[in-house]
């Protein structure tokens, strides 16, 4: 007999640390052809951190994103970032990029002042050009500044690199009265609703529909946000229903050795209907209001699915994963206890 149920869960997901300090650095170098090289230590594992940091650099330097080169293989010699974890990159690294961009603009104004015969304070940077305030025809493009700094042409050679560093306000001792402590940089908010069908003869749980909505501050790249919402569902679903490192714990000899034993969710395990939503409430600590959220999308589905199972069969399953064996044993125990 198939029984249906609905469950929901809410998630508060901390993004970025505060207690121990959480620094990131960045550098932006002007090349002789006017393009920019962005060096960041955050490693892109496919989540798109390099993409969004390029977006920030392009926005801040007011140039097309195609003019900003950033590489994932530069992390050995790039300025350091504490790392791509704790959903921290979107909150913290853009600040370092912002500071690096401001530093590079300042250096461009200083370098161009000889060539444009004006004091740096009288120069303005806008849309890839540096020009004399009030006399926009006395201007140089980024390519002209980059070319001059490399090959001369009336000025001394120079390497124009803007550098930036940032971290959230440092550790505050917790309040002895209340215990309160600002432990994280920002919090993102998520909600998940799951609908399931539980087969009481086989113990199989089928998640038929799942909806996740996340409040992300500012969706710097909505396609990447969508990927993170639906992507986090994968380990979330597996944790809840199929993935078990030690099914016969504490005996490690029978640990799974392949993907047949350690069952990752397939296309068929994903809900027949998978919905997602993005909410934006700009966060005061983020550049353009952006903050991270990604890992939180793994945390909503497990409690939502467990609540849906409870709704379907009236039992709170208190172990993960809720495999058919676990479900059937729980149903038997319920029947035995009358």
């Amino acid at each position, binding site marked *: 007999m198939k029984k249906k149920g609905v469950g929901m869960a809410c998630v508060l997901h901390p993004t970025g640390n505060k207690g121990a300090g959480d620094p990131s650095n960045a550098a932006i170098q002007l090349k002789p052809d006017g393009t920019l090289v962005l060096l960041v230590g955050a490693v892109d*594992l496919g989540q798109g951190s390099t993409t969004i940091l390029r977006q920030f650099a392009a926005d801040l330097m007011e140039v097309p994103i195609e003019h900003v080169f950033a590489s994932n293989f530069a992390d050995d010699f790039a300025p350091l970032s504490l790392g791509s974890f704790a959903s921290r990159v979107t909150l913290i690294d853009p600040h370092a990029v912002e500071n690096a961009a401001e530093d590079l603009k300042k250096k461009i104004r200083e370098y161009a002042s000889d060539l444009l015969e004006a004091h740096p304070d009288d120069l303005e940077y806008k849309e890839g050009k540096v020009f004399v305030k009030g006399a926009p025809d006395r201007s140089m493009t980024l390519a002209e500044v980059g070319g001059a700094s490399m090959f001369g042409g009336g000025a001394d050679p120079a390497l124009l690199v803007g550098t930036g560093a940032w971290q959230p306000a440092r550790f505050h001792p917790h309040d002895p009265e209340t215990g309160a402590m600002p432990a994280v940089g920002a919090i993102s908010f998520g909600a998940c609703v799951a609908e399931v069908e539980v087969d009481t003869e086989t113990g199989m749980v089928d998640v038929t529909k799942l909806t996740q909505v996340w409040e992300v501050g500012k969706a710097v790249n909505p396609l990447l946000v969508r990927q993170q919402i639906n992507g986090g569902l994968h380990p979330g679903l597996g944790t809840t229903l199929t993935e078990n490192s030690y099914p016969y714990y504490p005996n490690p000899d029978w640990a799974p050795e392949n993907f047949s034993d350690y069952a*990752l969710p397939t296309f*068929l395990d994903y809900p027949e209907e998978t919905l997602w939503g993005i909410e934006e409430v700009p966060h005061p600590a983020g550049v353009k209001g952006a903050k991270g959220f990604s890992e939180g999308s793994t945390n909503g589905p497990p409690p939502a699915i467990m609540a849906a199972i409870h709704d379907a069969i009236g039992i709170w399953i208190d172990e993960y994963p809720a495999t058919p064996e676990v479900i059937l044993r729980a149903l038997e125990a319920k029947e035995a206890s009358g």
Partner: protein
Amino acid sequence: MKQILSFILNGSPVDVIVTPTETLLDVLREKLGVTGPKRGCDDGDCGTCTVLLDGEPVRSCLTIALTVAGREVLTVEGLSTDGDLHPLQKAFHEHGAFQCGFCTPGMLMSAKALLDHNPTPSRTEIREYMSGNLCRCGSYEEIIEAIQVVAAGEYAPSGGKE
């Protein structure tokens, strides 16, 4: 005992010396430098080594190389023509149908086989046909969407979206 294996790889004849125990994946990656097919589980579970053998999807990690003698093998390297991406590649790109990209070569080959056999699959048919390919980044929804838009003709060579 070593033998010369001759087959058609991405439209061109190749000859390569192989041993009887080498898999097609070994030969493609280690001897021919064709690294599109990935070595994921090396056990037939994950599907990222999928190639098309005479148009049918096979796990190259489970295929003994000598069994492809005289036959046609298509890998992800053979999907684009004259530098122009295959409609599925364009759709995967624009619809964000991957994150780390490790499963993508296998996903593309399975999706091509699906559409070659069934040009207008339903959502259920896509889920069933593709269920032998795993994606740990969880891009299933985006992959389904990419296959659907290709099936709908959005990236068709004649007058479709570039």
